[in-house]
């Protein structure tokens, strides 16, 4: 539902063009454990150009979710001086940002 590119998925290469993540052990597709529960709702505005008013909604979740998730993470840290986070926002990337802003906690 769009959380995977926001939090997990990435294909990257080293300077020699060797790919990181060429198997499902490293290209991270979320399982039932990583996936949150969600609620859906809808409003209906039928298309006037269409015999049954249909519009495509196949990608509703996947298009909007990544920036929504980034916006949430940045919103949590805006007051620390964080303006933007690149995706996927892995735990290590989030920690790095917190560290730079002096907000990474030690237990």
């Amino acid at each position, binding site marked *: 539902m769009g959380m995977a590119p926001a939090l997990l998925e990435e294909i990257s290469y080293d300077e020699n063009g060797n790919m990181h993540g060429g*198997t*499902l*052990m490293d290209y991270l*597709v979320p*399982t*039932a*454990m990583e*996936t949150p*529960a969600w609620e859906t709702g809808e409003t209906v505005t039928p298309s006037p150009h269409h015999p049954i008013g249909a519009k495509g909604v196949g990608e509703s979740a996947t298009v909007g979710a990544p920036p929504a998730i980034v916006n949430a993470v940045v919103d949590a840290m805006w007051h620390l001086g964080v303006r933007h986070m690149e995706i996927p926002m892995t735990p290590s990337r989030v920690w790095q940002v917190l560290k730079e802003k002096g907000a990474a906690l030690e237990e």
Partner: protein
Amino acid sequence: MSTHSITLKVNGEEHTREVEARLLLVHLIREELELTGTHIGCDTTSCGACTILLNGRPVKSCTMFAVQASGAEIASVEGLATNGNLHPIQEGFTEKHGLQCGYCTPGMMMTTVALLKDNPNPNEEDIRWGVAD
């Protein structure tokens, strides 16, 4: 390279085959026994599309050699329905649209059958944990 005569029971039916040691169980099931409901999704034991029940326990048939299954009882998705009646799990998946493209569904169903055998009243956490592969 060695070949081996193996006998195993699949969905209650006994089969004997001469197989190369390296033949993966999933290939035996799909290509020798022509039970193509069991699918292959990855090479790394990550996805679970190939899940079957080996002596009642769900395992990934892509990470086991056919020769290891000699003498075992195997259940694949084809064995769920009985006398033309869908298994309750199959009915449940149908009713709740738990399919989408259906490719991993056989593995999901076999995992679910085993999960419910161990834990007939799972909560959401149990279910998520049980099918997370």
